[in-house]
């Protein structure tokens, strides 16, 4: 029972981190209709920039400055890269962002090398916030939860309660009309792209010390972010949040408990073939939940695409 509570908190941290990445991506996706393959690379840049800044000015300045730098970089990529490629259609855009992802990874390796960086949590947060039955919850995790929730509330407020947010939402659905009304839609796109990448940067800054700052960090998170926005529904902030939390909890719980396929199959009324090592079904019977934890979100995505192609909270038909 205690462990369930601990896993709920762990899953929440994972989910909220995923949310910060997918929130920006889902806006960019619905706006430009293009998968930004380089999104996770901006997350990595956030971590590396923050690490570099933290060497001179400390962790907190890194948290403040690095996302800004990443955001400006992202806006620049949109203004001078994507916008030019845009006129040639979606495929060149896709290839452009894919190339950018590879380029950023090589660049990071070139500058910082291939080893993991000693990027650590700030000393002020290096204590145990509280313990549940011997399982300590580090204060840094609580800090991550608060930052993510604050960002979610801020985004939600801007998008739904302010004039800027209204224009953005309008531009997402009817860009031509909004342009005809005299708004500078390319500027809005650039702004959204910049903010989206800055959010990825924030995620990188706060995830870097716990998940590790190394050249492969974008790769391990890259595909799961796309899964999140597909499950949540393109362009939906709530969808991104719900899908992120869902994925966070699913993977955490299936890793934390050794549920065995054997038990499930027996419960369903199948009989275990004997001897098991001679059976063609050997691999299926011996699967445990931690082994398949990381592919469960993909299975969920396939199911969503079959039964609800526009995602949990998506508004348009895909």
């Amino acid at each position: 029972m205690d462990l369930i509570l601990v896993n709920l908190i762990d899953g929440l941290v994972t989910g909220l981190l995923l949310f910060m990445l997918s929130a920006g991506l889902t806006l960019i996706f619905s706006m430009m209709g293009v998968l930004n393959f380089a999104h996770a690379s901006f997350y990595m840049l956030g971590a590396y920039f923050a690490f570099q800044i933290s060497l001179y000015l400390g962790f907190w300045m890194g948290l403040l400055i690095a996302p800004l730098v990443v955001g400006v970089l992202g806006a620049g990529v949109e203004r001078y890269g994507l916008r030019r490629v845009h006129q040639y259609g979606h495929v060149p855009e896709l290839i452009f962002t894919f190339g950018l992802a590879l380029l950023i990874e090589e660049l990071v390796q070139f500058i910082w090398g291939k080893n993991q960086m000693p990027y650590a949590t700030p000393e002020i947060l290096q204590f145990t916030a509280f313990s549940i039955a011997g399982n300590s919850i580090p204060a840094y995790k609580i800090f991550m939860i608060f930052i993510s929730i604050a960002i979610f509330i801020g985004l939600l407020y801007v998008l739904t309660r302010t004039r800027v947010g209204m224009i953005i939402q309008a531009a997402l659905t009817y860009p031509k009309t909004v342009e005809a009304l005299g708004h500078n839609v390319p500027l809005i796109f650039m702004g959204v792209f910049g903010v989206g990448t800055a959010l990825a940067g924030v995620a990188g800054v706060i995830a870097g010390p716990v998940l590790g700052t190394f050249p492969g960090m974008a790769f391990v998170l890259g595909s799961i972010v796309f899964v999140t926005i597909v499950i949540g529904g393109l362009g939906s902030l709530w969808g991104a949040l719900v899908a992120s939390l869902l994925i966070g909890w699913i993977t955490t719980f299936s890793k934390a408990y050794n549920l065995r396929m054997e038990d499930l199959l027996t419960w369903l009324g199948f009989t275990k073939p004997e001897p098991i090592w001679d059976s063609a079904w050997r691999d299926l019977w011996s699967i445990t939940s931690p082994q398949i934890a990381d592919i469960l979100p993909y299975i969920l995505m396939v199911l969503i695409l079959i039964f609800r192609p526009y995602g949990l909270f998506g508004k348009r038909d895909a």
Partner: protein
Amino acid sequence: MRTKTMLGLTTALTLAVSAFAAGADTIKIAFIDPLSGPFAGTGTNGLHQYEFAAEELVNKKGGVLDGDMFEIVAFDNKISPKESLIQLQVAIDQGIRYIAQGNSSGVANALTEAINKHNRRNPDDRVLFLNYSAVDPALTNDKCNFWHFRFDANADIKMDALTDSIVSNDEIEKVYIIGQDYSFGKAVASAAVRYLGEKAPEIEIVGNELHPIGKVKDFTPYSRKIVASGADAVITGNWGADMVGLGKSVLENGFTGPIYTYYAAADGITAAFGDAGVGSLRLVAEGQLNPPPNDRASEYIQAFKAKYPDGNLSQARITNVIEMLAKAINEAGTADDVVPVAYALAGMEHESLWGGNLMMRESDHQLIQNVHIMEHTSDVVHDHDNSGFGVKVVKTVEMAAADSPTTCEMRRP
């Protein structure tokens, strides 16, 4: 005028050629390891250690035989067995007789088979395989051959020493084994279960699991399980980012016992752990850096750091490879025919630069040496990653597993 020039040229050329012939030859050693891709860091660092060892321990002392110099020739195998075989052929075509490789037992298995076949078919240009890091026990057991020499302690020998250390610690009653889901991770797990079962059946193995290699984003759920299992110690064969991820997560989530590892040092790992690893991280390895075994070793480390400030002397055994090879060539009196060199190497005893004796066991060509249990601490003279932290020897198993059995049936030429 013209004839004079021609004559002059010819003379000069003849002189040059004869000078070359009379002067020092080079003995080339092919270094086949990853120099690009995700493991390039480890490969490049190994190459530097080879180049430095050849220069410092052989060439500066006048070389071998009558002044022949060692030269390390680097080949990038991208850690792929297929690519390694191509590079092996290139090296052989260049007339290289000595092949050094270490990263990945998969590659080593492919190389030892190919070299065995090559030597059988081409008795005139045989080559030797100097394996300095691949620790799959099979290489000196079922798959052994006369041309393969292993300079690292194999996975079983290391686990033997590691479990000795666990058994001697009365506080450890429950052990959790976790590793990467591939051949090496499985080998470590099965060796741990076997040795613990033999030596201390009363120690309970409360967890034995594998996780996907290089794909885990967050190790928290695994560490929760480890903490919840009530384990007193963790054993893992993890390396690279998986080692850092697992170790940091386990420590952050409240685990305080020892974590026994194979590879939790250098290549950024020591720096990444920093203060957090003190008191927990243990490492089983050969080659003592701290406390410095002798002045000669200290000087050697300082000279290496002067040349490669960002490098690490992470594979001490490389100096053993170079020194023992030089000694064997001198004993054999030739570097061209590897058969006498191999016979000289087999059974050779040597005093290591890092203290302690080395003995190349004749029966399976496994180097028998001191294996140490080290701990991650700031109390070191020579640190890793310029981090102020390093590994210090806390326990030594002298000539570990010297009488361990082998299934090797070697056919000698």
